[in-house]
C-alpha cells in the first residue's frame, strides 16, 4: 500500500533538467514529467523556476527531506560520488513545502514568484 502525502517542489530553471531526470530515476514512471509549471518573478517568460505540486509517496517525501537517506538510497542504486553530490545539491537548491501547511500560491508568494502568463484562450 502506498502512503501519500502532498508537496510543492520548486526548482530553479538552471537545474530543472537534472531535477526531472533525478525524479524519474528515484520514483520511476510516477516521477516522470515533473516540473511542468513555469514560474518567474514577473509572471512573464522565460521561466526562472519550475514547479510540481500534488501527491507523492511518503517514502519519496522523506528522501527529499533527508539528505542522508537520499544518499543511502542513491548509493544503493549504484550512483557514483560525483552525481551523488550533484543530486544532494539539487535537492538543496529546491524549495519543498508541505501542502497541508502552505498552499501552492502561498509558496509562490513566499518566494516572490508568479506563474508565467500563457497564451489567451480563443
Amino acid at each position, binding site marked *: *500500500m*502506498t*502512503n*501519500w*502525502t*502532498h*508537496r510543492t*517542489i520548486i526548482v530553479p530553471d538552471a537545474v530543472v533538467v537534472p531535477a526531472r531526470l533525478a525524479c524519474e530515476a528515484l*520514483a520511476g*514512471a*510516477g*516521477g*516522470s*514529467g*515533473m516540473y*511542468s*509549471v513555469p514560474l518567474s518573478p514577473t509572471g512573464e517568460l522565460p521561466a526562472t523556476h519550475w*514547479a*510540481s*505540486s*500534488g*501527491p*507523492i*509517496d511518503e517514502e519519496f517525501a522523506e528522501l527529499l527531506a533527508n539528505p542522508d537517506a537520499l544518499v543511502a538510497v542513491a548509493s544503493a542504486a549504484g550512483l557514483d560520488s560525483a552525481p551523488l553530490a550533484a543530486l544532494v545539491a539539487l535537492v538543496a537548491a529546491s524549495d519543498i513545502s508541505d501542502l*497541508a501547511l502552505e498552499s*501552492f500560491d502561498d509558496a509562490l508568494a513566499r518566494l516572490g514568484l508568479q*506563474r508565467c502568463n*500563457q*497564451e*489567451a*484562450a*480563443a
Partner: protein
Amino acid sequence: MGGLDRVFRGRRGGQERPLAAIIAGLWRNGEQGVWYDPSDLSTMFQDATGTLPCYMPGQGQVDPPVGMLLDKRLGFALGPERITNTEFQTLNGWTAVRGASATVSGGAVTVTTANPQDWGSVSTPIATEPGKSYLVKVLMTSGNGQNVQLLVSESAVNHVNITNTGSSRNAVGYYSLVFKATKTVHYVWLGSSTNTASVGVSSWVAPSVREISANYAFQATTTSRPTLSARYNLLTNTSFAGAIAGAPGTAPTGWAFGFATGEITAVTPLGPDFAIQIAASSSRLIFTQQLTAAPNVAYSHWIDVLETTAITAINFIALTAPPSGATMTYWFNGELITSSTVISNPGRLEMRMLVGSTGGSYYVRFGVGCSGNTTGIATIARPDVRVTNDGVGLPPYQRVLDSNTYDTVGFPLYLRFDGVDDFLQTASVDFSGTGVVTMATAYRKLSDAAVGEIFALSGNPTASSGTFGFYTPESANGTAAAVFFARGASSIISGQRLGAAPISCVAGGWVSISMPYMRYRINQGSSLTSSAATGGGNFGNYPLYIGRRSGTSFPFNGRLYSLIIRGTATPDATIAQVERHLNSKARIY
C-alpha cells in the same frame, strides 16, 4: 417520433426509463465517447497502470490520487475475468514455455528458466475480441534479481505482436499493461525477460485479464494526478473530541478558547460526536478555529443548539477579525432571523457571512457569549462551515476529525484538480466518423484567476481542425464565462455562459461542426445557441485532455463530478435526462 427518440424511450408508451439506464443506453450502438463517473470507486486506480484501486477518501488515509479513470461507456468499467486459472492451486491452463519449468505452491506459480535471455515463462490462453482493449495485471511476489516481464503474445511459445512491461525490471510488485486484441486468442506470459544474465526464478500471484474501454484516462506523473475527495466541511475535529468539563475545562482538541470565563458543565456523547454544555453567568466561554475566506464568497457557519435558555443568536456564533466589508445574517432552522433573536428552543443555527472584495483569514467562534458576556446555559454540537452554495440537499453536518478522516455518506465524490499541474488524458479517441458530439458534465469551478480547461479533444483545440472543448473560466480575471466550443475545418463555433467562482454547474448540450449549430445550457437554464460558420468537416482523432490543455497550460482549478461525451446527435429530451442524472449525483441545483 424519430428513431433517436425511440432509442431513449421505454417500451411502454413513452414511459421514461430510470436515468442510470438511459445513461448506459447512450452507447448501445457502439457510439464513440467517454463516460467518466468518479462517484463509482470501481472506475479509479491510484496509479496510471491500473494496479492499485482507489480507496474511499475520508477513512483515515490521505485523499487518494487518481492515476487511471476508466470509461464506463461499455456498460462496465472492468469486464469479466478472462483467465480461467487465477488461483494457482494447480497449473491447469498454464504451460511452461521456452524451456522453463513451473511449480505451484500457496497460490503462487514459480517459474524457473532453463537459460538466460530466452524468455522462459508460463503462458495461458485468453479469449479476446479483436479491436477490444484489455487490462492485464499480476503481482510478482519474489524474484532472484534477474529481469522479468509480463507480456501478451499472439502465440503460446513465440513472441508474436507482443505487448510487454519492459525488459529491465526485476522488483517485486505489480506488473500491468493494456493491450488491444488483434486475434480471438492471445496468450499471457509470466516469467523472464530477454534482458537476463543468468537463470531466472520468479513467483507470481493473482493474474488478471479484464476488458476495459480504450478511452480510459490516465496520468503517469504522480504529482499531476487529481485527488478523489468528498470533503465539504472546512472545520476539523467537529466531533468536539478532547473537551473536558471544568471551569473553564479543556477546549476540544484543535480548538482554542477565545474567552473562557464561563465553564464547561458537561461533555456527553452524541452518537460518534460530543455535545458540550456551557454555563455562563455574566461571563462567556467560546471555542475558535481559524479559517480563510475568499473574496465575494458566502460561507455558512452552523451549530446544533441542543438545549438553551434564552440566549441571542450572535452569542452562539460570531467571528473574530472577519474580512473587511463582510456582512453577516443569521438563520434558525432555515428561517431568517436577526443576530439579536433570542434562541430558546433547540434547532440548527446558521450564521452566513458574505465576504466583500477583500478576503483573508478569520476565526469562527462557537459557544456561549460569542459577542460578549452573557448569562445562560446551552448545549451545542456538530459545527460545520462550508461555502454556502456548495451543494443542494447535502447532509447539514459533515463530521470531520482531521483532513484525512471525515464522513462521506451523502457527500458526492469528486476529482479535485488543483489548478496547478493536475490533468488526465486519454490515448487518441477517434471521432472522425462524426461531425456531431453531445456533452454533459458536472463540475465546480473554484477560481476565476486563470483560464481552466475542463476537457478538450486535442492538445491544441482552438487551432487544430475537428476539435471541441470546454473552458471555465474562459479568460483570466475576465468574464468568468464557461465556454463550450468546437472547431471545424476552418473556424470556431462557441457559446458562453457567465457565472463567477465558486460555482457548481451541470452543463449539457451538443455541437455540430458540419451543420453548423450548437446549443448548450447550464443547470438546465435557458439554452444558448449559435450557428457560426466552422468550415464544416468532422471531428478528429486526438487525445482527450481533462483538466489541463495538452498537459501544459490552462489548469482547471475545481472539481469534476462527472463527464459524458457522446459522438453523435442526442435528442434534447435525452440530454435533459442526462443532466438530471448528473445533478442527482453531484447535487448541484
